[in-house]
């Protein structure tokens, strides 16, 4: 091995090199001895050969290659059909349903506390209201103000606030959430709310957030979102006009038209509706046929356009001028309401 030449005189150089090698040998010998001591201790203590796999465990942990079994030799869904005994209620529950059952059984977890508080509220309310009603009325679902329902109805209540419920309810927090909750608190957790028992402010707030269409059968307002597929925008508009008066605020759903149309149409509506404020808004779409304005039988959502369709009876040029523009903009809408213009005209027939 060739070493680098040092800038020293050669006798010193050789001496230094010799010294170097000596030091190096010392260090290497030191390392060897260290190793020997380490090994010897490991042998005497018995852990020298521990790192190597022994035959016994090799056989035990060999890879299994049989069908129906994984590489460890375990069967796949061995516990699928097993039943476990709940330590709380001592019932036999299926394994896959065990965790949710335990959550409810022990009273821990989000859902169980929610259900419990709701049950409490229902019990309190039914206790306070059972004095008000006669026994006959309990059987009459239409007129009850939210007392205990039959088991069928109760089932729909059960999952009212569970995470599985439709997501449309969730983002609506704040005022509406609290108001809805307070209303539901008063009137039981039905799918509808009785409008007669709400104050004007509550009605207003409810209608700005919810569908609100009053069902023919139960006389309750729909609490689904403003885009609920069961009711059309026309029904919603009619309900608002019915409940809030002729100067009802415009629907917020699908508001693409400019607001400039709202003001003159609002005034128009007041003129037209002043004669009969008691129009029943709960008539179904197919109830009455009318031959007014067949060309205006296009999908119409805004109350502005619906009022303009009755422009024949109202006869305002202002409205008809805006109707052309609004009908053009609305014809490109994607959603098709179930009501035809026949229903709209039917309302005006009542006026005339």
């Amino acid at each position: 091995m060739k070493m680098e030449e040092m800038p020293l005189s050669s006798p010193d150089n050789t001496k230094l090199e010799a010294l170097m090698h000596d030091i190096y040998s010392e260090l290497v010998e030191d390392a060897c001895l260290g190793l020997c001591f380490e090994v010897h201790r490991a042998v005497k203590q018995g852990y020298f050969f521990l790192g190597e796999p022994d035959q016994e465990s090799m056989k035990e942990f060999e890879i299994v290659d049989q069908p129906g079994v994984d590489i460890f030799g375990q069967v796949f869904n061995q516990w699928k059909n097993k039943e476990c005994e709940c330590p709380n209620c001592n019932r036999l529950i299926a394994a896959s349903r065990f965790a949710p059952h335990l959550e409810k059984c022990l009273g821990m977890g989000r859902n169980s506390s929610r259900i419990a508080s709701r049950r409490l509220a229902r019990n309190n309310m039914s206790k306070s209201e059972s004095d008000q009603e006669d026994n006959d009325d309990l059987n009459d679902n239409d007129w009850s103000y939210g007392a205990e329902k039959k088991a069928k109805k109760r089932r729909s209540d059960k999952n009212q606030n569970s995470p599985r419920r439709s997501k449309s309810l969730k983002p609506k927090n704040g005022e509406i959430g609290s108001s809805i909750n307070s209303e539901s608190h008063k009137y039981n957790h039905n799918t509808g709310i009785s409008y007669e028992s709400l104050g004007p402010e509550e009605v207003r707030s409810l209608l700005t957030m919810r569908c609100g269409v009053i069902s023919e059968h139960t006389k309750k307002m729909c609490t689904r979102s403003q885009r609920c597929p069961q009711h059309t925008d026309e029904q919603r508009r009619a309900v608002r006009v019915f409940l809030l008066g002729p100067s009802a605020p415009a629907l917020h759903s699908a508001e693409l038209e400019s607001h400039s149309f709202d003001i003159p149409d609002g005034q128009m509506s007041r003129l037209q509706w002043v004669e009969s404020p008691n129009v029943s808004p709960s008539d179904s779409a197919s109830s009455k046929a009318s031959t007014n304005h067949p060309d205006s039988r296009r999908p119409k959502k805004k109350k502005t356009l619906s009022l303009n369709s009755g422009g024949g009876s109202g006869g305002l040029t202002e409205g008809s001028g805006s109707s052309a523009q609004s009908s053009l903009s609305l014809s490109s809408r994607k959603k098709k309401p179930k009501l035809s213009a026949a229903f709209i005209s039917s309302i005006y027939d009542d006026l005339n």
Partner: protein
Amino acid sequence: MFPRFTFNITHITGALTPWCRFTVFAVFFPSDLNTMNKEARLKATINQKLTETGERERLKELLRAKLTECGWKDQMKAQCKEVIKEKGLEHVTVEDLVVEITPKGRALVPDSVKKELLQRIRAFLTQHAS
């Protein structure tokens, strides 16, 4: 091995481990220095300096790390296993291992490791040699 001298050792510095029977690090009295020649004196000084500055320890650690890294240690362990199997697990002694392992160990050190270590020693020497 450097030539043996008899001198009075009153203080012994440095780590005195069982296997250091070949070298003794000592503080020398002035009266002893006259009996040594320049070479020995130089060696003694260098060794002393190595220990004092902590360079010896550093070099030791460096060597150990390098030997483990390059697989020398595992090789030597395999050699040890051979010796153990030969002598029997219960009766193997330190001496058995030392006698077998040390010459092999010295030979099996890779060249790169040797070179690096020699370089470092040389650097130290040029720095501290008078």
